[in-house]
């Protein structure tokens, strides 16, 4: 009776459907789907595909930035006419010149700021979907300690950085721009100092977060990676030693399972990295071209017009540079995390 019952239970357990665990990267967000149109086989192939799709974006972005720069140049040329005037008339015309430049540049700069915030939000949201998959894949490969530690760090830093950028750094860029226009118009040195301070806060916040995060990941990778590798090795030796006859076969089979998990994890990681680059590349091109064009226009305006007008334009280009730094930092942070997950248990 006992035997029949045992056989029945065994047969029932065999009837339960079982699937191999599948790890799949989340779909590319809508903003990046235009750049990653097909599923690439390798990272370099995917990167080439993204670049190929991104190159045509340069021309419209360039035309948009050129129109803005032509408007600025018109104001700078007019201000060149009054460059030699002495006294109060010159001062008031400088105020008007700075206000005009602010009127021309504030709207596109605001659009770029919103674009940067949106990109950071999308990258962060994609990371929230990708990292649990990578964590599960890394855990399946034997990196239970590493995956947990890295997931906690990545999620915490990503949340901190996104929140910091939206609530502190982006308002700081607005303050920087307002101070720039005011100091261009009035020429007070205290405004110049405040402007430099707001820029310093933005750059150092980003640098500190990136340094701390990469440092933490390096230490976590070394410490918990070694612990996980030792645990996997110990498990293999135990299996091959404890289970008689077939122990070494089970141990070899587990090695195959681990290698498969590693392959799946790497495929998910590569696709995830490409998806992140696809989300980031469009805004990078738009903001980057505006940054370069404003830099060139600022230099030209400083030459033909007054130094203060040129400085206001340069400050707007600096703000675009700060936005590039923000989006770049978030993207780089997530890419480093994916690479650390891919490195896994060595």
């Amino acid at each position, binding site marked *: 009776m006992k035997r029949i019952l045992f056989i029945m239970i065994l047969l029932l357990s065999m009837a339960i459907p079982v699937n191999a665990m599948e790890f799949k990267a989340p779909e590319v967000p809508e903003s990046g789907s235009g750049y990653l149109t097909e599923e690439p086989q390798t990272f370099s192939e995917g990167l080439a595909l993204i670049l190929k799709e991104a190159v045509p974006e340069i021309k419209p972005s360039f035309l948009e930035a050129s*129109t*803005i720069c*032509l*408007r600025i*140049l*018109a*104001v700078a*040329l*007019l*201000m060149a*006419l*009054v460059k030699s*005037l*002495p*006294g*109060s*008339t*010159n001062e*008031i*015309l400088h*105020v*008007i010149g700075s*206000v*005009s430049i*602010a*009127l021309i540049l*504030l*709207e596109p700069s*605001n659009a770029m700021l*919103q674009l940067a915030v949106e990109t950071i939000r999308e990258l962060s949201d994609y990371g929230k979907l990708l990292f649990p998959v990578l964590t599960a894949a890394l855990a399946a490969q034997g990196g239970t300690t590493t995956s947990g530690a890295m997931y906690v760090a990545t999620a915490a830093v990503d949340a901190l950085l996104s929140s910091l950028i939206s609530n502190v750094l*982006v*308002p700081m860029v*607005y303050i920087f721009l*307002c101070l720039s226009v005011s100091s261009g118009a009035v020429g007070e040195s205290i405004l110049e100092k405040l402007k430099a301070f707001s820029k310093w806060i933005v750059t150092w916040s980003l640098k500190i977060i990136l340094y701390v995060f990469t440092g933490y990941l390096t230490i976590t990778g070394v410490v918990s990676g070694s612990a996980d590798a030792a645990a996997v090795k110990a498990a293999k030796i135990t299996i091959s030693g404890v289970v008689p006859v077939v122990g070494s076969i089970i141990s070899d089979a587990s090695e195959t399972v681990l290698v498969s998990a590693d392959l799946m994890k790497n495929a998910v990681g590569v696709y995830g990295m490409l998806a992140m680059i696809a989300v980031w590349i469009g805004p990078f091109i738009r903001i980057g071209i505006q940054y370069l064009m404003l830099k060139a226009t600022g230099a030209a305006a400083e030459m033909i017009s007054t130094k203060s007008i040129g400085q206001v334009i340069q400050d707007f280009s600096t703000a675009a540079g700060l936005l590039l730094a923000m989006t770049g930092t978030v993207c780089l942070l997530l890419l480093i995390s994916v690479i650390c997950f891919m490195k896994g248990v060595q």
Partner: protein
Amino acid sequence: MSDFLKAAVAAVITVVFCLIVSRQNKEMAVLLSLLVCAMIAALAVSYLSPVIAFFEELKALANLDSDFLEILLKSVGIGLLAEIAALICSDSGNAALAKTIHILSVGVILYLAIPLFSGLMELLSKILGGA
């Protein structure tokens, strides 16, 4: 270039004449100076007209708002005129008038620039409201 040379020579000759005339008749010296200033200003305006035409081209190319450019051009014009008028007043010994002209020009330029300031305020409130 030749026009500029003529204007420069005329200015120097006028200075010499004014110095001679001012000993007997100061009013005549001021009038002479005013006349030559007006002639040189007219010459400058004739040179500025192609510059303004270039601005019109730039305006079309850059989709620049006409009202915006008009305000800027008027402000610059007032600034230049005020400076010339104030210098003539100073030369004729009327420093108070020169100062008043400066104050007037600043007032008029600020009055003209009100749409620019209100545009900036509107834009800022839109941005801050949306942020």
